[in-house]
Structure formats: C-alpha cells, structure tokens
C-alpha cells in the first residue's frame, strides 16, 4: 500500500476516525488499534513477512529486558550480541546472501572452480533494513544505559511497526519515539494542519518531481550508449532530483501522516542540495541513517578523536557501510567510497564542521559556487548509485565526459525543467522550516495559501506520470 495510492486514501481516514473517535478513551486501546492497523498495512505488501517482523520485535523486546536485568557485564554483552547477530543474520540472509555467494563464486572461478546453483530466489522483505535498525538502536541504547526497557509489548511493537515509518523510515530512536507512544495524545490543530501540508508537499515531490524526472533518468541510464554527453549529464541531474523527490517526498508523507495521529517523527532531510560541502550534505541527507551510523558505529570506533590513520579508517567504515546498507551491489559500495573520498579532506583539514545546519541567509557568490560544486560532486556519485553495474557506471561516465558533453542534449523537457526550477525556488524560500511548504505558508495570507495549495494540486494532477515504485522500498 503506497502513500500515494487510492488504497491508502481509504485506509488512512478509517485509521484516523478509529484512532481519534472510537479508541480515544484509553491510550492502550489507541496503541493497540494503531498496532493492528500497522500490521494490516505491512501485510498488504506480503503477509508472510509479518511473522519475521513480529519475531524481530519479540527478540529485541526480550533481549532488551535481559540486558537490563543482567547482573554481570559479560551477561549483558552476551544478550546484546544475540540480538545483534540474529538481527543482522536475518538482514544478511535476505539482503546479502546472493551477493556473497555470487562474489565467492567469482573468486573461485578465477582459480578454475565453478560454483553454480548456490544462489537462492530470495524475496527481500520490505522495510527489513529500517525495522532491523529500529530494533538494534533500542537494544544498544539499553546496553549503553541510555534508556530502560519498555514493559508493554504493544508499545514496543508499535515503536518498531508504526506504519508511517515501517517500510522506508525515517529510522527512529527509542529515546524519541517511545516517550510519544507512551504518553496520552490529544488532537493538536496546528500539528494536524502542518501534517496535511506536509502530505501535500510530499505528494508534489513524489508525483511531480520524482516520477517525472524518473522517466528521463531511466532513459539515460537504461540506454546510455544511445545518448550524447550532455543528455547523460541531464539524465544524472534528473536522477538526483528523482531520488531526492522520491525519498524526501516519502518521508514528508510519512511525517505528515504521523502528525495527523499526534506523533512527530525525526527529521530525515534538510534541503541537502543547498549544502556548501559534503560534510554539510551528510548532515542534511537521510539524517536518520547517517546519525544512526554516527552514534552506533563511528563514535564507538573513536570517531574523529583518534589518531589520523584511525580517523581515515573510521570514515571509510561508515561510508562503506552506508553504501552497503542500500543493497548488495558493488555500485552502492562505490558510491559510499566516493563520498568517503569527498569527505576525507575536510575531516583532515578540520573544516568538516564549518557549515553546520544553519541555512544561508542571502545567497552570495561564494556560497552559491560552493553549493554548485557540492551538487556536482553528489550528482557524480549518484551515477554509481543508479547504474546497474560498475561497468555501466564507467560506461556512463566515459560518454558523459566525452566531447559530446558540449553538444545539444537529445532531450530537454521544458515543462519539467520549469517545474523543477519552481520547486527549487519554493525550497529556497522555505529552507528555514521543516519543509518548504510550511515555510511558505507562514508568510502567506489565507487566500494566497489556498491558491498555493490548489496550484500544487493542479500540478500534481497534471504531471502525474507513470507511477514509479518508491526507490527506498528496495532497501
């Protein structure tokens, strides 16, 4: 069930009514109702994998308690490792088994051995990377004594399975979401209005920006040899906007939906393409994942407070892991590697914290140039992310940087480019707020706000293209 589907348009009002009007008398009933709704939402993808989700939930709930109640440090560690190994074991099996088998097979073939028929026809359970990381953060936080375990299985299950974030995040933290789940909620008009706006903005990003850019990005990446360098450059830029519109659009819809239920989710995107350097980009892009890796991998490894060689190692570890998290393909690892290479100079020069999450007040030449350079680097790395294989990525790059880069592009969708510019302007105006539409609405009178909503709706209906699956569902 996609957020931008008719099914969800029927499902959500039912949940909304049940949640606020039928089960609103008691928190436990409200949570139980949300949990059942979340399981139903998940079962719509594939009901068989619901049992995996339930098992993972029970495992972390149980090991969390065991860690908390353990008397000795070694006992705590054992329970922690049981949780980590089982969780990562499932993730590894469903997501990486075929990749490792194929890689081993390639290595053996170099020595003349042939391993065939070892790969399995494994279906990736939707959202497994997200809910596994939810569960792991909970268990690790208990181990680190940042939180105490929850004593209510419904509350904990809801933390893992809350439907707005179940299949594509943001990756929540127990410290942020659990207190909201356990506290009584009352309807907040302003939060609900912001939620509806955020859903509208998410729909615009997904259906207008992402799905339409996808058509041109697909053309360029699927038939690389048929296009000249300038077309491939455009194709890569379209992909950059596709993935941003797709993923941040999904996050906006998830956040908006959650707000309508009185629950706030952590921020996942903060205008990443307005970043002035790569370090800033990573503070603005998929924030919940990068902060997860920072808190649970980078800092435990020593972060930047160790000797230089170890700093370099730590940077490569988290960027390669981040790439690998996206999927079992060398292209994602190459993407992570590139970002590590981009990031490293600023870390070694100590300039990685220069541009914090404050936004540029007025666009000057220097900031503008830095933004363009950063955007160019990010787009270049996206080529590896999007290409089917490393070979395809290099083929793409070799044509892109040929003499034909300066020829006339073979496609130039004027309407879409106009809409993209409109989108960038709106994002720029609203950049100091959680999402651009919120920022715009603060400044506008009621009639102008209504007009803006309808303009977005007309654009959504007009540009609604060939529906594309959300990219991050595959992760």
């Amino acid at each position, binding site marked *: 069930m996609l957020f931008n589907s*008719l099914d969800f348009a*029927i499902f959500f009002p039912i949940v909304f009514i049940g949640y606020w009007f039928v089960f609103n008398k008691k928190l436990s009933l409200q949570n139980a109702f949300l949990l059942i709704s979340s399981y139903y939402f998940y079962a719509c993808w594939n009901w068989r994998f619901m049992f995996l989700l339930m098992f993972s939930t029970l495992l972390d709930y149980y090991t969390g308690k065991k860690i908390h109640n353990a008397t000795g440090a070694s006992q705590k560690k054992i329970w922690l490792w049981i949780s980590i190994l089982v969780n990562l074991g499932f993730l590894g099996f469903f997501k990486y088994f075929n990749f490792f088998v194929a890689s081993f097979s390639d290595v053996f073939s170099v020595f003349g051995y042939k391993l065939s028929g070892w790969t399995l026809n494994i279906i990736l359970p939707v959202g497994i990377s997200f809910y596994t990381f939810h569960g792991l953060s909970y268990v690790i936080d208990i181990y680190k004594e940042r939180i105490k375990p929850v004593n209510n299985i419904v509350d904990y299950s809801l933390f893992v399975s809350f439907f707005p974030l179940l299949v594509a995040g943001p990756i929540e933290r127990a410290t942020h979401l659990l207190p909201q789940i356990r506290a009584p909620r009352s309807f907040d008009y302003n939060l609900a209005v912001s939620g509806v706006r955020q859903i509208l903005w998410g729909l615009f990003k997904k259906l207008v920006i992402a799905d339409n850019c996808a058509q041109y990005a697909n053309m360029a990446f699927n*038939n690389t040899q048929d296009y000249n360098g300038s077309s491939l450059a455009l194709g890569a830029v379209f992909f950059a906007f596709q993935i941003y519109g797709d993923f941040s659009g999904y996050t906006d819809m998830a956040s908006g939906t959650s707000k309508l239920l009185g629950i706030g989710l952590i921020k996942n995107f903060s205008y990443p393409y307005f970043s002035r350097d790569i370090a800033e980009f990573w503070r603005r892009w998929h924030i919940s994942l990068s902060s997860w890796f920072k808190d649970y991998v980078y800092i435990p490894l020593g972060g930047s407070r160790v000797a230089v060689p170890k700093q370099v190692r730590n940077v490569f570890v988290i960027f390669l892991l981040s790439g690998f998290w996206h999927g079992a393909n060398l292209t994602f690892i190459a993407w992570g590697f590139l970002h590590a290479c981009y990031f490293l100079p600023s870390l070694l020069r100590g300039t990685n914290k220069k541009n914090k999450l404050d936004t540029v007040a007025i666009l000057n030449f220097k900031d503008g140039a830095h933004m363009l350079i950063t955007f160019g680097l990010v787009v270049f790395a996206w080529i590896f992310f999007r290409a089917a294989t490393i070979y395809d990525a290099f083929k793409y790059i070799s044509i892109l940087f040929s003499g034909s880069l300066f020829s006339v592009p073979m496609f130039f969708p004027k309407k879409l480019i106009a809409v993209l510019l409109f989108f960038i302007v709106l994002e720029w105006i609203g950049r100091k707020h959680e999402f651009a539409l919120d920022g715009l609405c603060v400044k506008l009178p009621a009639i102008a706000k209504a007009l803006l909503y309808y303009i977005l709706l007309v654009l959504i209906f*007009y540009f*609604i*293209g060939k529906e594309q699956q959300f990219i991050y569902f595959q992760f």
Partner: protein
Amino acid sequence: MKKFLKRLFLYLIPILLVWAGLEFFYRTVPNNYTFKHQNISKNYDAKVLVFGNSHSFYGLNPEYFCKKTFNISNISQSLYFDELLFNKYTADFKNLKTIVLNVDYFTLSLQDDNVEDQWRKYFYAAQMDLDVPGISIFNPRKYSLALVPRFNLTLESLKKYSANKTLADCNTSGWGRRDGIGEGENNEHMGKIIAQKHEDGSIDFKKNVQRLQDIIARCKSKNIKVLLVTMPVTSYYAHNVDQEKIKAIMYQCNKIADGKHVVYVNLFQDSRFTNSDFYDTDHLNTAGATKCSKIISNLICTPHP
C-alpha cells in the same frame, strides 16, 4: 478537531466537484468501449470477427472483407481481453465462420494486468459488460471511472472531446481510421523508441500460447476457422526489435497453425507494404489498412489447400 475537519472539507469541495464532473463525463461521453459495445449487437450476423490490439483496430477495415465482418479489437487490447470477449460474445454470432487474432511482437510475452490493463480493465468491466476477474468489490475504481485513468489521460480525453464531441475512434464496424502519415511519428528515431516501448525483455510465451490454444480449441468445436496474423510494421520498427524474439514468435505461431483450422499469416515485413502505408512506425494508415484488409479477406475467402 471540528475546526480541522470543517476546513479540510471546505478545501476538498472543489476536488469533489471535479471528481463528480469527470465521473459524469466518463459515464456519458461515447468512447471505443461504449461504441463497440453498442454496435456488437447490431453485427451479430457477421461471419468474421477481428480481435486484437491497435494494429488490427487501425489495420483491418471490415468494409474490404469479402464477408460481413466486425472488428472487436481495441487499443492496447491484450490476448487476455481477446479471450474474455471471445468467451462472452461468440455464442451470439450465430453465423461466425472465422476469427482473426493478432499476434504481434509483444502479444505472446505480455504479462496479465500490465500497466495498460490496470486501468483499461475497469472500462471493459463497466462499459463492455465484461466480467473481469480480479476486480474486487472493495475496489473503488469498480464504481468510479473518474478514479481510473491518470489525470493527464483525462485531460487528453477532454481535449479530444472538445474537438470531436466524442472519444470513439472507430466506425460502426469497429475500424479506426487514420489518414496519411503522422508528423514526426514515422521515422527511424520513433521506430527505435516504439520498439523499446514494446520490449518487455521476456520470451516466456507459455501463458499466452495456452490462451491461444484455448480459443482455438473452442473454435474447432464450433467449426470456426482461426487466422493468426502478425500485422505489418515499418522497416524502422522491424529493425529495432529483438530478431531472435520475433523468430521465436513466428516459430510458435507456425507450430500452432495446422493449415486447416488454424492458418498463420505473417505480414511482419511483408514486401507488399512500404513505409508510406503507415501512420506511424507500427500502425497502418487508411491506405495501408485497405491493402492489409484485402490480403486477409483474400485468405478468408480463398479456400486453403
């Protein structure tokens, strides 16, 4: 909460009005589905029925057939819907002697419930009275056609309606007319694009071959002759499709044909057609349709050895 719901409702009023207007539009304006449905009953005495997709919709004109013919094909009509239509209507065609079935580049490998079928099925169900499996009673699209096509298609339909006062492209015998050559549509570049569009990367013909065989078996039991036709296309298109796949399709059709009840007619790169016979890279224009219809008619009326 009251204030929120009230405001939300106020914002939704224009959307609900547009939705109601579109529903009225789709329910009242004639289109290929309603038009064919109306005319089927007027043609129950036809001896030949033409099934298939847009290739036969634009390419086979019943006027040039030696026997009374009705063209029941439609744009993007898959074998899946051919079979449903066959099962529903053939009993009503008491004089039916021959059916023509389109087997084109994509026909055999096309998946059920593909992108086109996903919205067209509601029109078949609502406007051609077909009992389409897989449409749940809980599916709102079953009850509202305005929710079915993408909005840009609806806008195109509205434009078309304002120009022609109808959405139907065909005449009373079911044939769709297209004159001349479409501007910028019949050239090498488009040939490549359309060939790619038709490429699903599959050579799994099992399901659709079974479907063909089921139709043929029913035809045999009723003594109805089957003509499997691979429609002509331009050289622009033909050069850009997977040559191995087209060979596999032809092999499959030849295997099914027995020369008696089932005849296979391969016009894919037939030398009698030139690129000027086509409106675009894979659809015949009026002149091409005349030529093609006469060829097929000849095959129907000339007894086979």
